[in-house]
């Protein structure tokens, strides 16, 4: 089912949805001298007209599922203690692009596995509805198609929003979810259109996604031990400062640590790019140098994670780690070197 709606109608729909959901959407936000696009909760009706879908948000919505600091409970509360109710409303995420949807799916794989469920993640996830958004043009440095992601369409969300210049299309992909969240009435009145009308728009937009200069030739996973030992990681990643910004912006990075405030046990993001991440109390450190940490980040995404999850990539190609890196250390360049080394091609010195 595909519905056509004007910008005004979309706003009215979101207004109605606000009665049921905490709506979280991208906004242009001033941070010092920079303007960033960030996911933020819609706090009032007038904010609806400022929702900004045109650009890839600065960060994925991962912090709404795995918060940067997350209160787990009092450390004396016991193993049967349930997570605190953190929200009265279910949450609706508007305008989530395919790369970030894939990031959430990866979190689902990791945090709601058969042998382990993270109750904090599960509660947030179960209480969230995602409206996807079809990209009209590639984000800076993105290479999503190289990791098997379709930026224009995504069947893994119940609703998908398409910007048609003059108004929008809303594609309903899962009626059951709409019933569960009692949304069917809200969109009933909107005019339904033929799928060909939407297909035409997608076809037009697809032209903006020409062949990427970067391509991933090899299937995943990369062979673990060979990639680990045969690549000159030091040469490829020498400029890394170890700041960890790539992992914090990464929609798929989920590593964490615990910290305590008196008897409160909390969880915070951690990063394999930090020297202390693996350091033992004894002083021994399995990853002593920054290139070893870089190797961990890349191989976790392109070898270890795909090995554990049926070939599913641990990278969604959003390009944020490239855009955010203070020394322009581009994962595509390192991947290229890894692929060349694995293919047995001689790797020339620094190509940059």
């Amino acid at each position, binding site marked *: 089912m595909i519905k056509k709606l004007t910008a005004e109608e979309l706003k009215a729909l979101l207004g109605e949805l606000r009665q049921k959901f905490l709506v979280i959407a991208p906004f242009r936000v001033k941070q010092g001298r920079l303007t960033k696009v960030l996911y933020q909760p819609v706090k009032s009706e007038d904010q609806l007209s400022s929702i900004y879908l045109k650009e890839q948000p600065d960060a994925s919505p991962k912090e709404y599922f795995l918060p940067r600091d997350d209160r787990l409970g009092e450390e004396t509360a016991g193993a049967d203690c349930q997570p605190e109710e953190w929200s009265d409303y279910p949450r609706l995420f508007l305008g989530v692009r395919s790369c970030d949807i894939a990031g959430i799916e990866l979190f689902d794989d990791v945090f709601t596995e058969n*042998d382990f469920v993270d*109750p904090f993640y*599960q509660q947030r996830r179960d209480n969230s509805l995602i409206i996807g958004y079809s990209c009209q043009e590639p984000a800076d440095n993105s290479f999503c198609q190289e990791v098997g992601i379709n930026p224009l369409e995504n069947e893994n969300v119940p609703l998908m929003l398409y910007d048609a210049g003059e108004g929008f299309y809303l594609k309903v992909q899962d009626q059951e979810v709409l019933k569960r969240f009692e949304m069917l009435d809200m969109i009933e009145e909107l005019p339904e259109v033929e799928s060909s009308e939407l297909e035409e728009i997608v076809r037009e937009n697809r032209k903006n996604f020409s062949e990427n200069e970067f391509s991933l030739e090899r299937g995943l996973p990369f062979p673990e031990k060979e990639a*680990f030992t045969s690549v000159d990681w030091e040469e490829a990643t020498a400029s890394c400062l170890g700041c960890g910004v790539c992992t914090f912006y990464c929609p798929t990075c989920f*590593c964490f640590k*615990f910290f305590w405030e008196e008897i409160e046990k909390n969880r915070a993001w951690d990063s394999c790019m930090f020297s202390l991440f693996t350091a*033992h109390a004894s002083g021994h450190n399995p990853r002593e140098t920054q290139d070893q940490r870089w190797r961990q980040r890349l191989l976790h995404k392109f070898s270890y994670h795909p090995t*554990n999850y049926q070939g599913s990539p641990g990278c969604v190609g959003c390009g944020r780690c490239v855009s955010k890196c203070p020394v322009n250390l581009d994962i595509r360049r390192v991947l290229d070197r890894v692929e060349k080394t694995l293919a047995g091609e001689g790797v020339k010195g620094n190509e940059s």
Partner: protein
Amino acid sequence: MKVDNYLPREAEITKVVQETGINLNIKTFHLSFTDGEEMMDFKPGQFLMLTVYGVGEAPFGLACAPTTDCQEIIISVKETGKVTSALHELQEGDSVGIRGPYGNSFPLEKTSGKDVVFISGGIGLAPLRSLIDYVLHPDHRQDFGRVQMLQAFRSPEDMLYDYEQQRWENTPDTTVKYTIDRPCEGWEHCVGFPHDLIEVELDCQTEDTVYYTCGPPIMIKAVTNELVNIGIDPEDIVTTLEMRMSCGLGKCGKCNIGHRYVCKDGPVYSYKELLEMPDEF
């Protein structure tokens, strides 16, 4: 589906044993749950996450065996970092938190019916003790063949479990040998590093014998190399790894080696498995 909220059960310290002198401050803690619920189910080789309230949490290998008369949890702790230092300050009656058990376990099925050799270095004896006590327990002794132990310590001062050694030595078909790094007055046992003593002091069969070793990383490497040199199949050499860990459930990322998480797929690995893994431990 197993849900884990990362929060521990409360346990009380029922006994503290000072194992070694001040040079290698190791204490053994006996713990029992205070919630009146059952003792946790565990297997030899597994570990737990221990919380010192208000300080933090760290992983410790279980140093007790899940035998019928097992009433308490036992861990041996070397004072090293923040959590272990705080734990060493605690006394009988104090409370700590326990999560787990986590990880795989020593391969009991594979070991059943075979001879067993234990080679330990220092506090590496602690995780092996979970299997030693299991194998030597009257309920299980007949399920295993001959047992040989070679325990290495820095000095006589640094010996662990001297109160258990006599019992182990007296178990049928069991030999226990001790070695220290340097000769010392009054010491009547072996002297030298364990890998140098394997061939002379142990009767190493290549068939139907499983070799367990644990100790400092450099000692594990030397011992496994020596065992392979004398013809032992890497599949029959078993060790247990120590890594920094936060969650114990294969999520937080710290103990990741290749596609494996030491907390979940380990900590117990055969040397054959270690050879297949990236060298990052």
